[in-house]
């Protein structure tokens, strides 16, 4: 036995797996040096936030095998939590007596509803933006996974739940701002430090959260719990007979994924300066699935880059409305093609290409032994 398969840590290829994440994070942090335009920086920040959202889906779908078609629901809850807190901080011009939000005044609401009260505290809102989506997901997950509902049913129920929540938000206009969402927000201020949507501080905040989410998701996939989750994806029934409570693991990864999506939602409110029902709409949820599939669902970095690149491309083309409509058509076609012929997405393609190059090089040196059979890292 060569030293190739015995690793002192017992965890093979940590370096190879974490390197892409570190490189991507470094590039993200370096972007403001290249982009000297606040408007552009804000735009890029939006795509980065969508990247975080897509990483959260890769975690539950690519690693956990749970295709959540309502991933944008957690995102939307996060974004509303942030918007509610920032709304209550707006200067009195936009509000009624006692800091009552303007849309409530227009809808003849006399007092701030009870579920708005705690959002007067920013720290509560910051915590809620992450914890509430996780709790909602855990509750929904309890019903779904304890019932051993699998595969497509999970997708349908998550999708339906999101659609219904979306309808409820639009319907309860006097408490949620309805169709228009929550607009005219104050700036986020933490420790006297203001986060202007177009400022560098906000960009670095987003960049830090990109790094944080990628690393947390990665760390999870490296734990034994993360391994069990992947085993469940491969063969759910088998895992039970080793004594693992499958539903508990599924609920956990589902909730973790929702928490990350909630964080992304909060950031999105900061960079967009409003919250809207479209943030938990079918359109966005669908786009996330497409980005994740194109980038590579079993690769955290792949999913992240898939979102940033495809959403960025869409943004660049959106100057012309006619082009945007054709773009949606093209994206649909691209998605179908990826599903049919490239199930592991661009990350899978890159990996195969890399392996091919390595094998060629080794073959020319006459030592092609073993390479290409061992599995590459899944970071």
């Amino acid at each position, binding site marked *: 036995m060569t030293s190739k*398969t015995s690793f002192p840590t017992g965890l093979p290829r940590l370096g190879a797996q974490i390197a892409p994440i570190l490189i991507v994070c470094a590039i993200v942090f370096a972007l403001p040096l290249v982009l000297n335009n606040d408007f552009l920086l804000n735009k890029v920040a939006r795509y980065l936030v969508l990247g975080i959202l897509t990483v959260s889906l890769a975690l539950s779908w690519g690693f956990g095998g749970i295709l959540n078609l309502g991933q944008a629901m957690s995102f939307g809850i996060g974004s509303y939590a942030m918007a509610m807190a920032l709304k209550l901080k707006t200067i009195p011009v936009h509000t009624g007596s006692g800091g009552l939000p303007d849309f409530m005044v227009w809808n003849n609401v006399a007092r701030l509803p009870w579920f708005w009260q705690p959002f007067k505290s920013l720290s509560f809102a910051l915590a809620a933006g992450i914890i509430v989506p996780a709790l909602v997901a855990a509750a929904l997950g309890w019903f779904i996974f304890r019932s051993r509902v699998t595969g497509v049913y999970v997708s349908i129920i998550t999708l339906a739940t999101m659609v219904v929540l979306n309808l409820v938000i639009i319907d309860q206009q006097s408490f949620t701002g309805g169709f228009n969402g929550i607009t005219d927000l104050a700036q986020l201020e933490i420790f006297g430090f203001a986060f202007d949507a177009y400022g560098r501080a906000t960009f670095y905040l987003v960049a830090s959260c990109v790094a944080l989410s990628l690393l947390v998701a990665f760390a999870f996939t490296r734990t034994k719990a993360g391994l069990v989750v992947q085993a469940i994806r491969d063969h759910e029934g088998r895992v039970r007979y080793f004594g693992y409570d499958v539903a508990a693991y599924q609920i956990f990864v589902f909730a973790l994924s929702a928490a990350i999506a909630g964080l992304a939602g909060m950031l999105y409110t900061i960079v967009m300066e409003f919250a809207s029902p479209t943030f938990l709409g079918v359109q966005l949820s669908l786009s996330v699935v497409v980005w994740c599939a194109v980038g590579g669902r079993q690769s955290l970095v792949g999913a992240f880059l898939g979102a940033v690149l495809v959403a960025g491309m869409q943004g660049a083309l959106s100057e012309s409305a006619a082009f945007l409509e054709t773009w949606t058509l093209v994206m649909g076609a691209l998605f179908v093609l990826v599903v049919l012929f490239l199930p592991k997405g661009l990350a899978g393609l890159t990996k195969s290409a890399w392996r091919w190059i390595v094998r060629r090089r080794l073959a020319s040196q006459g030592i092609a032994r073993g390479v290409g059979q061992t*599995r590459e890292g899944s970071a």
Partner: protein
Amino acid sequence: MTTHLDLRDISVSFNGFKALNGLNLSVRKGELRCLIGPNGAGKTTALDIICGKVKPSTGAVTFDGTALQDLEEHEIARAGVGRKFQVPSVFRDLTVAENLEVARARRPGVWANLRWDVRRAGRADIERLAELIGLTEHLERPAAYLSHGQTQWLEIGMLVAQDVELILMDEPTAGMTAQETRKTAELFERLRGKHTLIVVEHDMGFVKAIGDIISVMHMGQLLAEGTAAEVEAHPEVRRAYLGSGGITNA
């Protein structure tokens, strides 16, 4: 020795077909019990009942004083029952090492497995196991790339890693070459004594090589029990196998 596992009056039916019809079976601690019988006798269903895959409509399963029939699969596994399936069931996208790691399930809770040091601790165990099942060279390969025999051994290795009292094996040598079967028999010799084993098997040569006591099932019931010679001489067993060329060719 006292009774370790006890099945009492187990019945179960699928769409009116009685797969088990009042089955009684007891196994002592440390025993290697072979379960044989013609096709459709209910052997696999009996294993399914023990490990909780199928719930009996009547009857009780007791294991070390614990009633298993009302527990969920993972609770039964935690009580000390492991299962190898007829179709080799491993995690194809995970490497051999990862498969063995998943099988080492001493602390199956989510929170206990979120710690970083959990996986590091088991590495030596896994390498030892890989040697036992002859897969040292393949530790870092995805299980999907293993041959059929290697996959069977991997699953057996996973059961050893799981380290349970009672191991249920459904046709562990199915699809193996003669040489592979011999190697499997050796593997079983090493498990004997440390675990209680129930093995469903068609290959009578293999059964004779490994078995202490053989239980013969027919039509969802226990037909006979005893050593290989006793069972082969049993008139009812001969009748049950009539037309299929006798017990040796079943």
